[in-house]
C-alpha cells in the first residue's frame, strides 16, 4: 500500500434504506426510490436539508425497461434537494461506482452527505414476457432493429444475454479447472438457505441439489437457478464525511478501500483470460490500497447476477486460489452463515432479488451493524467485502465497523 492514506477512507456509510422488494409491486420506480432515500436519510439521523449530494447508477433512461430507475433530476426535484454535487452514470467500476464517486466527492469536500441509490423495476417490466435478452424480444419481420457497437458482434449469433456470455466463461472453467455443476450449485443452494432466514427475500422455499440439477437449462452449463431473480425495489445509502461518525444513530461504517481497476480489455469475449474478467483487476486494485488481507474479511457479499460471477469473485478477491473456488465451496461449509466466510447472507440476487449490486451492499451494512436477525452472521463481523459486476464491469469495496 502507498504511504498516503487512500482518500476514500475519509468516507463512511452513515445510513441505509431499502424499499419494499418484490417480484411485481405495482409501484413506480420513483415511489420506491423515495421510500428508500427517505429511510436512509432518517437512518443516518439526518434531515433532508442536510443532504447536499446525490448519486446513482446508471442514471435515468438507460437500458431496457425497468433497468435504470429514476434519474438524478427526478429524485432531486421530488425531494427538492439543494445539491452541491450530483452524479449519475453507467460507465465505471460496476454498479457500485455510484458509491465510489460519492466517497470521492465527500473526500474532496464537494459534499458532506450524499444519498446514493439504485432502483430497479425489472420484475414488473418483464411481467408476462419472460426475461429478455439485451436486444429485446423481436417479433420477426421488418421491425427488427439493426445493431451497432459492441452488441453487433454477439447478437447475430443468439448470444443475446449475459448468461450466454458468462456460460462461455463457465465452460472454460470446467475445461481448465474441472469445475462441476455440483460445485457451482453451491452458490444457489447457499443463497437459498440464507434467503429462508430473510423475510424480504423473493424465493424462500428450500432448494435441494436435485432441484438445481433438474431445473431447465438456460445456456449450458448455466441453468435457471444460476440466474438472479428480476424484481422491483430500491436501495439507498448515505455516504458522509467520517468526521460525523461519532454522531450517527447507528454505527458508521468506514470505507477502507475501493477497487476500480480495469486493466484487461473492456470486453465480454476478448478478455485476455476467459476464465476470469474485470473482477481480477478491481480486486487487485482494492488490495493494493489497504493493509487488510482476505483473511481479515468476516462476511462477503459478492455479486451473483449469475452464480459463476460469485465463483470468479471468490478467487479474485483471494478467498481461495485461482481455479479453486469449486473445491472451496463444494460442501457448502466454507460459505455458510456459520462458516469461516459467510457469503451472500441475505440470499443474494439469486434468491433475494436482483437489486443490482446494491442489495449486497445494503446487506453488508446490515451484517456489520449486527442487525441481521435470523440471518446475522455470528461473531460480530468487523470487516465486509462487497463486489459488484460481471464481465468488463467490476467494482469492489471493503467496509469496516471500526476506524481503519
Amino acid at each position, binding site marked *: 500500500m502507498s504511504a498516503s492514506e487512500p482518500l476514500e477512507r475519509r468516507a463512511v456509510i452513515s445510513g441505509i434504506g431499502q424499499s419494499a422488494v418484490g417480484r411485481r409491486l405495482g409501484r413506480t420506480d420513483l415511489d420506491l426510490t423515495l421510500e428508500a432515500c427517505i429511510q436512509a436519510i432518517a437512518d443516518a439521523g439526518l434531515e433532508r436539508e442536510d443532504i447536499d449530494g446525490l448519486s446513482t447508477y446508471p442514471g435515468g433512461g438507460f437500458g431496457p425497461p425497468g433497468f435504470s430507475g429514476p434519474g438524478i433530476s427526478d429524485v432531486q426535484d421530488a425531494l427538492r434537494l439543494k445539491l452541491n454535487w450530483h452524479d449519475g452514470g453507467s460507465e465505471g467500476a460496476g454498479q457500485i461506482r455510484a458509491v465510489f464517486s460519492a466517497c470521492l466527492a465527500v473526500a474532496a469536500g464537494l459534499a458532506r452527505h450524499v444519498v446514493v441509490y439504485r432502483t430497479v423495476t425489472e420484475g414488473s417490466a418483464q411481467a408476462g414476457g419472460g*426475461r*429478455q*435478452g439485451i*436486444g429485446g*424480444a*423481436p417479433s*420477426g419481420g421488418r421491425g*427488427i*432493429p*439493426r*445493431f*451497432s457497437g*459492441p452488441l*453487433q*458482434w*454477439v*447478437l*447475430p*449469433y*443468439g*448470444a*443475446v*444475454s449475459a*448468461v*450466454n*456470455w458468462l*456460460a*462461455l*466463461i*463457465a*465452460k*472454460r472453467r*470446467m*475445461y481448465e479447472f*474441472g*469445475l*462441476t*455443476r455440483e460445485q457451482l450449485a453451491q452458490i444457489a443452494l447457499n443463497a437459498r438457505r440464507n434467503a429462508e432466514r430473510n423475510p424480504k427475500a423473493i424465493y424462500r422455499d428450500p432448494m435441494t441439489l436435485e432441484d438445481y*440439477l433438474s431445473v*431447465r*437449462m*438456460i*445456456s*449450458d*452449463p*448455466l*441453468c435457471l437457478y444460476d440466474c438472479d431473480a428480476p424484481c422491483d425495489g430500491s436501495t439507498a445509502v448515505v455516504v458522509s464525511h467520517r468526521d460525523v461518525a461519532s454522531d450517527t444513530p447507528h454505527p458508521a461504517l468506514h470505507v477502507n478501500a475501493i477497487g476500480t481497476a480495469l486493466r484487461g480489455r473492456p470486453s465480454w*469475449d*476478448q478478455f*485476455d483470460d*476467459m476464465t476470469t474478467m474485470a473482477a481480477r483487476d478491481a480486486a487487485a486494485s482494492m488490495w493494493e490500497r489497504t493493509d487488510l488481507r482476505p483473511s481479515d474479511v468476516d462476511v462477503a457479499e459478492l455479486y451473483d447476477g449469475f452464480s459463476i460471477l460469485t465463483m470468479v469473485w471468490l478467487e479474485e478477491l483471494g478467498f481461495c486460489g485461482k481455479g479453486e473456488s469449486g473445491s472451496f465451496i463444494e460442501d457448502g461449509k466454507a460459505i455458510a452463515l456459520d462458516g469461516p466466510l459467510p457469503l451472500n447472507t441475505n440470499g443474494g440476487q439469486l434468491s433475494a432479488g436482483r437489486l443490482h449490486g446494491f442489495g449486497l451492499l445494503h446487506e453488508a451494512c446490515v451484517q456489520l451493524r449486527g442487525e441481521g436477525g435470523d440471518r446475522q452472521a455470528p461473531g460480530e463481523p468487523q470487516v465486509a467485502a462487497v463486489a459488484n459486476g460481471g464481465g468488463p464491469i467490476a467494482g469492489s469495496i471493503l467496509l469496516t465497523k471500526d476506524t481503519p
Partner: protein
Amino acid sequence: MTASGPPIRLLPRVDEQNRFFWTGGEEGELRFLACGDCDRYFHPPSPVCPYCLSRNVTPRAVSGKGTIHSFTINFHPWTGAGDPYVIVLVTIAEQDDVRLTSNLVDCDAERVRIGMPVVVQFEHHDDVWLPLFRPDLEAEQDGLPSKDGSDDLPLRDRAGSR
C-alpha cells in the same frame, strides 16, 4: 441434434468501419484489420492499431481456420421458439488473441468440444454475410494439436447437451 443458429438473426448495421468484416463473405473471405507496420491483427475494428498506434491499418483476409476456445448450448427461447443452438468462441489460427463469438453449424451438437478445429462458412442476409463455423474435418483427421494443446483433458460437464 445438428447445430444451427438461433431462430431469428439479429443483424448488424453495416457502416464504414465494419463493412469489410460483414461483407467479406461475399468473396468467401473472413477479414480482420491488420497493421501494416507491426503486422498484427486486431478486433473489433478501430482506426488505430491498438498495439503500435499506427494508422496504417487495412482489412486482410485470414485463413478462416480456428479453434473453439469455449462454447455454450443455448436452450432459452430469447428470440422465439426454436431448437437449441451452439454459441462458440473461436480463436483464429493466425493470432491467439483474436476471437470471434459465432455459431457452430453442420455438426452434431453432442460433438462440440473445446479445442475443436473449425473453419469458417458464411450465411447471407441482405447486406450481411455472417461468419459461422463448422468442424474442420481435414484438421481433425490430421490430428493436429489444438492451439490449447490440451485436447486430451476430459471434457467435464455435458449435462446441458441433451
